[in-house]
């Protein structure tokens, strides 16, 4: 069913975000996620493939802005953006896709708790486990670059599964958005001559 302009004008932001805007919002969001993911992989490759000393493995952005990696700004900000995106876009998911997206949201929720705890330690000046530096809950067992790489991976995988399920053609009847709608022909979209 296609709504009229009067009806759609009454829709709130969250309804629009999970309806007509869901497809575009989802792909923009995923692009942000992948860019951050690549940054983490870059740092991981520096440590475990190029075997650079850990303090020198600053990722791609860290080469240009070392303070960005060493401060908590980038990590906390990204964790917050990612969690917010997961929560805001959740209502648009239906069926099994919703379960996977929810799983990703819960794991990212824990990841955000970890980063918030790191922030609080940095601000207050008292750290967990008597450590001289801000420390994650699981950091005594797994060093931080590995731990947060794994966190990001286990958030990323269910997110991709959810998006794959959500965009399957069979899902179109369930969705309130266009994410699973058939592709638009370039000619129909008026792009044939572009």
């Amino acid at each position, binding site marked *: *069913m296609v*709504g009229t302009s009067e*009806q*759609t004008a009454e829709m709130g932001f969250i*309804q629009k975000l999970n*309806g*007509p*805007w869901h*497809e*575009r919002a989802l*792909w923009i969001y*995923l*692009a942000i996620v*992948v860019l951050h*993911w*690549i940054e983490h*992989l870059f740092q*991981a*490759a520096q440590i*475990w493939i190029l075997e650079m000393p*850990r*303090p*020198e493995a600053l990722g791609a952005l860290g080469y240009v802005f*070392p*303070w960005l990696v*060493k*401060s*908590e*700004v980038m*990590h*906390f*900000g990204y964790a*917050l953006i990612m969690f917010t995106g997961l929560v805001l876009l959740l209502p648009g998911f239906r069926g099994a896709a919703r379960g996977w997206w929810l799983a990703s949201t819960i794991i990212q929720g824990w990841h955000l708790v970890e980063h*918030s705890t*790191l*922030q609080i330690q*940095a*601000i207050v000046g008292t750290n967990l486990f*008597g*450590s*001289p*530096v801000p420390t994650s809950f699981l*950091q005594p*067992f*797994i*060093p931080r*670059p*590995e731990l947060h790489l*794994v966190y990001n*991976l286990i958030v*990323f*995988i269910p997110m*991709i599964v959810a998006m794959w399920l959500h*965009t399957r053609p069979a899902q179109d009847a369930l969705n309130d958005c*266009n994410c699973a*709608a058939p*592709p*638009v022909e370039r000619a129909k*979209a008026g*792009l044939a001559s572009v």
Partner: protein
Amino acid sequence: MGRMHAMRSAIRLIALLAAVSLALPAMAHGDHDARPLLRRAEVGPYTVSVWQVYPDVGSAIIPHLIVTFDDGMPDEGAVVSVRVDSENVHMMRSVTTTGAWETTTGVEPDDVVSVTISERGEAWSAPTVVIPPPLTSVLPMRALIAISIFLAAAVAWWIGSRTAQAWRRPITYRNVGLEG
């Protein structure tokens, strides 16, 4: 009308407070890793720990040592000294960790470190510590990275194709809460 105005003002206030509370963490300075070399050792009247830390200053990135006092700070007159392979190294009060002393130079694997606390003519030494080899992975990191790179590349390609498709499609409104 007045109620709506009050609600909008409340939302603006909440947004402002949220922005301020986010600014504080943004200014906080973090660090990466610190591994314990000695935990809660009894040194005279004090309990100390020794950590190897990767400092967060861009140019001085040699792992160095921090001595933390776990159960209360020593008096102002107390001096913490560290010897690495029997040679004294320069120590200073830590500017980043409250109640701690730190070296200004790094240490290498197999260096032998001893910590001494001197106070009012008395001195106490902690057990010597041998700097262990660099950290090793507890996870199969190379395999994890290979899988992750493949996954990221596949998803990046998928994003490219689907984003182009999403932007070709006109935004249409359907179903969303319109049944009623």
